[in-house]
Every structure is written in structure tokens, then in C-alpha cells.
């Protein structure tokens, strides 16, 4: 181990041996994991997964069995598919809720990535008066609890006739302060001035420079921002719950209706929960690595 070699040189062999012993276990660089690291992590993982597994257990059961045995059997039973089908075809239009959730999440995420990269390109690479102050303003807005403005927002939406319309959920989320800040930070390091100059020499105006140089350079951070926004949109409840009506619900709002109308049949309620989780779980299995990387990069960079 390199660090103990250094200790051996400075403090002698005994100190190095003691240091090597102390370095084992968690904490600190080069630390070797011991068996209890894995045991504890397995416990943490079990706690993270358990509620989802519990939901699947109930979703694959039926109302009678759940009422008789409050503690479900450890293995899923066979009713999951039929329960899911019953929920999707029930009078709460779950199928269109899925379609709506996908639509809202995809449109907002794409838009956030596009506009945040545009603003991030300007803030990180272009010179203009007030740049520093405007960026500070963007950062400061992240601390404003905008959710508390719901009443006037509702009044505005009622004025333009968007109550019950998906547009009312999509439009306020088209670009976020977090996204702008994130892309500014990223492009500051990732986009060399030489590339911008080369594009300008070729006669690109700034918009073309953005399209040819900045947008491709931000692909990695853009993917992370897309994932974050997607998860945020998919799990968003408060505002959609207030503004959406009738036909055009997103999944969390549909789940709320399911809970209040099928409150006696837990197998159906949990089937709805499982249906709402699965699409994001698939996305997570495919791209969770990027999400982890994004959270960790965001923590260190700032």
C-alpha cells in the first residue's frame, strides 16, 4: 500500500505496520473493506428494496387473502398480471395517465436540456454586461419556495383556460434554475474556447456555434440533466393534483384517485403503485449509473 510505504520511510517499520492495521475497514482512502461493510450494505439495500417488494407481494395477492393475513407470505402469488390489467382498464383511466406522464416528462426534460444548455453556453463562454449578477440571480432563485405561488398561478391558468390541461403542468417546467446552473458549471470546464473560435472563423453565428459546438460538447451533462428532470417530472404531485382534472391526469394524480376509490382492495391499489414505478425502474436499470454519477459530480463541483 503506497501510503504506508511513505509512513515507513518517515516513521519507521513499526509505525507502518500499525498504520496498515488501522487502514483496514471503512473510512479514508485506500481503506480495505471488511466483511461487515458488505453485511451493513446488504442491510441498507434490503431496507431500500423492501417497500417495493412488499408492494409487489400485495399486488400479486387478492383482497380476501390480504384481509386474512396482514403479514403477507414471503413469495409473490399469481395475481399480479390480472390485477394490473384490472387497474389499467378500470374507470380511472390509468392507461392515458401513463401516456400523459411519459409525454409531460419527455417534453419537459428535452426542453430543460435545450434551454439550460443555451443559457449555460452564454453564462460560461460568452461575454456580456451583467453576466456575473444575472448568474447569481439564477442561483438565488433556487432558494425561492416557488410552490407557494400556486394560488396566483392557478388564477393565471384559469384566465388562459388551461385548468385541466397538460400544458399547465408542462409550461412552468420548461426551464429550471438548477438546469442553467448545472450546464454553466459543466460547459465552463468542458468546452474549450478554441472550438468556439474555430466555429466563429468558419462563419457561424452564435446560434450556429451553439448547435455545432456547445450542444454536442454537453452531451454527458445533458444526459444527466435529462434523467434528473425526468425523475422530478414523473414523481411530481402537488401542482398536477391542483390543476389537472378528468381525462388528463398524470400517474401520481391517478394513484391518488385509485386510493380514494378502491380503498378496500389493497391488491388493486398496490398494482397501481407497481405500474407507476416500473417504467422509471427500467430507466433506472439502464441509466442509474449516470444518475449516481450526476449526484456525486454535483456534490463536489459546486
Amino acid at each position: 500500500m503506497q501510503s504506508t510505504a511513505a509512513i515507513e520511510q518517515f516513521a519507521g517499520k513499526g509505525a507502518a505496520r500499525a498504520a496498515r492495521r488501522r487502514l483496514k475497514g471503512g473510512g479514508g482512502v485506500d481503506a480495505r473493506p471488511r466483511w461487515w461493510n458488505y453485511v451493513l450494505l446488504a442491510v441498507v439495500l434490503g431496507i431500500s428494496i423492501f417497500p417495493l417488494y412488499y408492494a409487489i407481494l400485495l399486488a400479486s395477492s387478492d383482497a380476501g387473502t390480504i384481509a386474512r393475513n396482514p403479514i403477507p407470505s414471503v413469495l409473490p402469488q399469481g395475481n399480479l398480471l390480472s390485477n394490473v390489467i384490472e387497474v389499467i382498464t378500470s374507470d380511472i383511466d390509468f392507461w392515458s395517465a401513463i401516456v400523459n406522464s411519459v409525454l409531460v416528462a419527455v417534453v419537459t426534460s428535452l426542453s430543460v436540456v435545450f434551454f439550460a444548455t443555451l443559457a449555460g453556453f452564454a453564462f460560461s463562454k460568452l461575454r456580456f454586461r451583467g453576466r456575473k449578477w444575472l448568474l447569481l440571480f439564477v442561483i438565488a432563485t433556487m432558494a425561492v419556495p416557488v410552490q407557494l405561488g400556486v394560488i396566483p398561478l392557478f388564477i393565471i391558468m384559469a384566465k388562459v383556460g388551461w385548468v385541466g390541461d397538460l400544458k399547465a403542468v408542462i409550461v412552468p417546467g420548461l426551464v429550471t434554475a438548477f438546469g442553467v446552473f448545472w450546464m454553466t458549471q459543466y460547459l465552463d470546464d468542458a468546452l474549450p474556447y478554441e472550438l468556439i473560435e474555430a466555429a466563429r472563423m468558419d462563419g457561424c453565428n452564435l446560434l450556429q456555434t451553439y448547435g455545432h459546438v456547445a450542444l454536442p460538447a454537453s452531451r454527458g451533462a445533458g444526459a444527466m440533466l435529462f434523467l434528473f428532470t425526468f425523475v422530478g417530472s414523473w414523481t411530481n404531485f402537488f401542482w398536477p393534483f391542483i390543476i389537472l382534472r378528468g381525462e388528463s391526469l398524470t400517474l401520481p394524480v391517478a394513484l391518488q384517485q385509485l386510493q380514494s376509490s378502491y380503498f378496500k382492495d389493497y391488491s388493486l391499489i398496490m398494482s397501481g403503485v407497481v405500474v407507476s414505478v416500473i417504467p422509471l425502474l427500467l430507466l433506472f436499470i439502464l441509466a442509474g449509473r449516470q444518475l449516481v454519477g450526476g449526484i456525486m459530480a454535483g456534490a463536489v463541483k459546486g
Partner: protein
Amino acid sequence: MTTTTRPSRTSSRRAVLARLDVRLTPYVFISPFFVLFFLVGLFPILYTAWVSLHEWDLIRGQGEFVGLANFQFVLGTDSFYKALRNTFSIFLLSSVPQVIAAIFIAYILDANLRAKTFWRMGVLVPFIVAPVAVSMIFAKIFADQSGLVNNLLMGMDLPAIGWHSDALASHFAIATMVNFRWTGYNALIFLAAMQAIPREIYEAAIIDGTGRMRRFWHVTVPMLRPTIIFVVITSTIGGLQIFDEPRMFDTAGSGGASRQWMTMTMYLYELGWGPQVSFGRASAVAWLLFMIIIGIGILNYLITKRIATAGGPAKTER
């Protein structure tokens, strides 16, 4: 054709256009955020103050100017103080254990593990489950009669807990949902901060002969201080506006028979869209909560500044 006969003119026009491009385009690029923020963020927040001074409802719209009457009404209800108490109680029960657990999980993850990405992804799974779905699952786990926890307790001959009837128990159940969803997320933030701690500091501590526990308390935790402050501040802003989990804790969604788990945002919703349909009163609650959050934000800032000048390790934070 002027363009062909006088090339000097076009090139000068092109130069003007290019100058305009350089001067104005940056503002065009950043404008979408500012336009949207003013329309759906800043203006509604400020306009909330105006609405709170009026009689105003869903059906008839703007009514008479009533001064501070809405504030007087709200501050005169029991519900307001219950909501305030519940919000802070749930917030404390979720933020404090969450930060502690997240630091310990990060500490376990901060070793040279096999299958690193697998473990990191594992702790992040709860984050992708919507709060509404989390709440529906936990409402069943914490159900009073048919719930998992109470039946396990009774199986061990212990008394069942009134998760819905007792105020503190309901706060604990709701805080558990919040902790479930956010602990892993925060653990990854702490993990990143731990990995940024310079290894020389650990080496120096090892040469001084400090054991693992002392290294954790005297090196790792102090070096994490800025990150802890960051996590606490962000969770304050979100935590005091909590709505989804308590709203879905039972089917009625009014916060319990005696409002034992109704939060401030739930009270706001009930005043605005419930039977009273009073946007004026709901706005008063929104504005009061807004001022509480800003006040705590300022308090946080002052405490942070105090700690920073007291001489902690200086590190920039996002």
C-alpha cells in the same frame, strides 16, 4: 443590384449584424429562464401578497379589499398552529436522523468495495419512487389494524401503536417515508464529499496514531461540515413545504380526525380548494409559510457564516 455593385456596403451591413449578434444574442440565450421565472415563479409569489389582502375565491374571483383580515382569521384558528407544529415536528424527525444515517452509509460506501456501482445504485432506488407511491405503501405498512408493523408487534406480544390516531406516531410514520426516499440520495452527496477529502490529512492522522473511530470523528466529520450545511439548507426549503406524504397517509387526505398530521401546505390547499374556497385565506397561509422559510434561510446563513469565520476548513459549496 446594390449587393453586387457595392460589396463594401454589404460587408459593413454584415459587420453590423455580427456586432449585434455578439452584443444581443447572449441575452436572447439566457432570456427563456428569466421570462419563465418571472411569469410562473416571481410574479405569483409577489401576487400572493396582493391576493391575501382581498376576499377572493375560486368561483367569483377578486372581491373586496379586506386588509389583514385574512391573516387575522388564519392566525385565529387552531388548525394553523397545529399545522405549524406538525410541519416542524415532521421536519425534525426526518432531517436529523436522515443526515446521520446518510453520513454513516456514505462512510460504509467509502471503502474500496467490489461492485461499487451496484451498491451506489442500490441505495438510490427509493429516490425514483414517487412520494405518492411511497406514501401509499407505507400507509399500509403503518396501518392501525391490518398493518405490517402492528401485526409484527402483536406477534411479539407488544402493544400495537396508533400510527394514525397518535400525533407523534403519525409524524414518525410520515418522517419514515421522507427518510426512505432521501437518505440514499444524501448518502451519495456525502460520499462524494468524503472522497474529496485530501488523503494527506488521513495519512497525517495515521502517523499520529489515531484509530478508525477518532479519524471518523476528528477528520471526516469536520471536513464534511460544508456539505452538511448544504444538505440541511436544501432540505429545509423542501421539508417545510411537505405535502405529498401526509396528504396520501390516509384516504381522506385532511390530515387526520383532529388534524394531527396536517401540514402547512395541506392547510393552504384546504383553505383554497376545500369547502371554504378562499384564495385570500390560502394566500395568507402561503405568505406566512414563505416568511418562515425565508426567516429560517437567513438564520441558516448567519449560523453558517459564524461557523465559517470560527475557522472550519474553507471549501466552496454550490
